[in-house]
């Protein structure tokens, strides 16, 4: 009996877990707003906007 008979179903189980997690997060609205977080992650609360990169990278974030 080859080990692959065990491993493939196991791999499917793992993949199913990942899909389940994705479906849950999508249903909870984590992917509803795909634009704002791209901007929000540039902002640093404590140290002010000193860490914000230049305009070019924001443009990329917008078009992404």
């Amino acid at each position, binding site marked *: 009996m*080859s080990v*692959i*008979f065990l491993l*493939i179903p196991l*791999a*499917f189980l793992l*993949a199913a877990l*990942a*899909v389940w997690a*994705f*479906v849950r997060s*999508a*249903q909870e*609205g984590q*992917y*509803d*707003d*795909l*634009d*704002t977080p791209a*901007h*929000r992650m*540039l*902002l640093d609360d404590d140290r*002010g*906007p*000193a860490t*914000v*990169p*230049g*305009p070019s990278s*924001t*443009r990329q974030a*917008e*078009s992404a």
Partner: protein
Amino acid sequence: MTAHPIQIPRSALAPARMRPEQGVRHTCAHCTLPVPDGLVEPGAERQFCCHGCATAYGVITSCNLAAYYDLLRRTSQERAPAKVSRRAYAEFDDPTFHALYCQPLPRDGGMLRTELLLEGVHCAACVWLVEKLPQLVPGVAEARLDLRRASVRVTFDPAQCRLSQIARTLDTLGYAPHPARAHGRHGTAGPSGGALGGSMTLRELRQIEDRRLLIHMGVAGACAGNIMLLFLAMYAGMFQGIDPAHEQLLRYASLGLTLVCLAWPGRVFLKSAIAAIRTRTIHLDVPIALGLYLGGIWGAYKTIAGSGDLYFDSITALIFFLLIGRFVQRRQQRSAGDAVELLFSITPTVARKLTDGDASHSTQDVPVEALSIGDVVEVRAGDCVPVDGTVYSGRADLDVALLTGESRPSRVSVGDAVVAGSVNLSGIIRVRVEATGEDTRIGTLMRAVEEASRRRAPIVQLADRWAGWLLVALLSLAALTVIIWWHESPTLAIDRAAALLIAVCPCGLGLATPMAMTVAIGRAARRGVLIKGADAVQALADARARGVVMLDKTGTITTGTLSLVRFEGDPEVLPMVAALESASSHPIARALSRSSSTLQTPSDITQHQGAGIEGTVGASRLIVGTRALLTARSIAIPTHIDHAAHRAVNDGLSPVFIAVDDRCVALAAMGDPIRPDAGPAIEALRQRGYHVRILSGDHPLLVRRVGAALGIAESDCMGGVTPEGKLAEVRRQLQSRPVIMVGDGVNDAAALAASTVGVAVRGGAEASLAAADVSLTREGLAPIVELLDGASRTLRTIHWTIAASIAYNIVAATLAVAGLISPLLAAIIMPASSFTVVAICLRSGAFKPARPPAQSPSAMPSRPLAEASA
């Protein structure tokens, strides 16, 4: 706009944004526009162009949020918003309002959550500032901004702060808030309001649909990826040999995944294909579903039979790719739909109704829906007029810009008609209700906008137009294959036919349009042209060289701001006039104060409501105002000034008389200058074969004059057109040819929505932006030419991608009919065609700058100069 006999109150608030004419030395610390010389405060560390900017700056800095300006300059070329409405937002505190728009959060101890749509949010700095709301208003627990929908979700404690306070703070920052009314409220909701009543709102339904599509895409991706791995092992086995038991395992495993993929995400194609067959409108989903499901079923049979080629990898990858295309397309359409939400939020929801009859003094806040004709409502300064009606008592200055686009306030008193949506700037009036809600003029207009946007026939995607032929070709090819191979063996014949259907599945075709449109729309956005939907691009390309371009005048062809056009008399008086007028905030005064630089300060100022201003500058006593003001002081008007005044009126300019020491010495003619790029842009449009017309609410004489300056024939200049008239004219033109409407005001909104493609220019009213298919964030008319060129280039790109994917399909079909196709070959050809499509889209020249150096840094410093001369 200058020909209307409107009384001009001097105390009225001036619009915040003003463009200076000359002598630019200071820029506003808030919005970075140049500060008019009359407002420069000598010695001050920071200068402001208007009171609104100064207030916003004060609020931002006092809460230690000055980093906003730093962020804004780093991340965006836009300016800080400076459109402040100064409304009181009192209706936001009304219990009815709370019941309609606020959602209690019982778990968080009496906290309320509400959603507000904001005007003017555009970049990362806006996200940062709006989400700092808890720091600005104590009692706000959280504020989350959704940039695409321009809406903020605020969680606040009603015991600690009022919603009106939150609204006023947002307004002070330049983001005028509106309650997020459920889209489709018109016509469906009763007095209880449709926002939270019973079933789900349209937006919630759409959200669920969005999520479902995303999940489908994710699941299809997971299935396709896993099957690809399994097939990799099988292909390796094909060359190196494989244990038959192992191969069977791999085949069954991939069958299982394929069935999941077909039954879950793939079902959308089956459903859509069945619906298409039922309505006898063949589109691309029919051949797609045919290939997917026949391939799947035949594959399942082959798996169980234990021999034969399987195409599961191609089938699942197809589903995944096609769903990506749909997701991309949907996201685009979504932004278009979201913009319309704001449209239904511009008129107030709550009115102050006079209880027990007209004579009473007690008012009660009631929802607008509960008002009936004959009721009397009170409108205080800062309020928005909630209904159409006549003034019953009181006097007030109303800002009617919302409906007419007229920037000057109009004065109303007893007996005058007022319309819903106008803002009361000063005074208290009581209004007898004549129409509410949908029956008001603005309501009718907005309903026209909604209907026009809904009724617009959906444009059939290019690929779908050919779907019928494709289906016929596919089916006959499949039949041909079966006939050719039947004599060898029936199983082999069906095998080949199934392979054909899968290999020739029009994946590239399905991807072509969404991909090309997404790339084009993304590029256009970076060039300052915001296109809301793919159909607008296609409609623009279709209208090429035969469409009519309808231009609004005020704010579109012209700058929309008053400035000094001609000055008659001694020019040395002008600095004194500018000094005196700097004391007033009226638009004419602002324009005059910008016209000359001065360091003098006026004293002893008297403002005459709607007539003028007088005061002492240096050693002279100045009177600046209407003819009536001077006549009232028995100041004679000399003949040459009188002639100049008549000429000014003839030219559609507003004459302003200037008297120094009781002698009338000069005349200033005020008007609205034509944008510098209007001439070249209109010429470029004509060269491309468009018919250019002017459609304006302004005085016909003035419109013809502007038309003459731009070389537009008199018969093509329509003046004095009401918003309803604009709509009718657009509809009339639509019967014979496509109409591209360009405008900026609420008065253009219905026409914008009804036209084939509506374009809202920069600085337009929010309602026009919502109604239009395209909005420009760059000043002037030049982007319109770019838009039309870009649209036809995009369509050319789509033609190329379709040609490429059809070429791939022909190759695949030939191979399949000849029996040369194998699962491996199909698995290579299919993604190759999709990647070719994407590559062609990325390489296309649509919306790329014509000359690359045009956007180089050298363009940046010239920007303020260009605006200064505008």
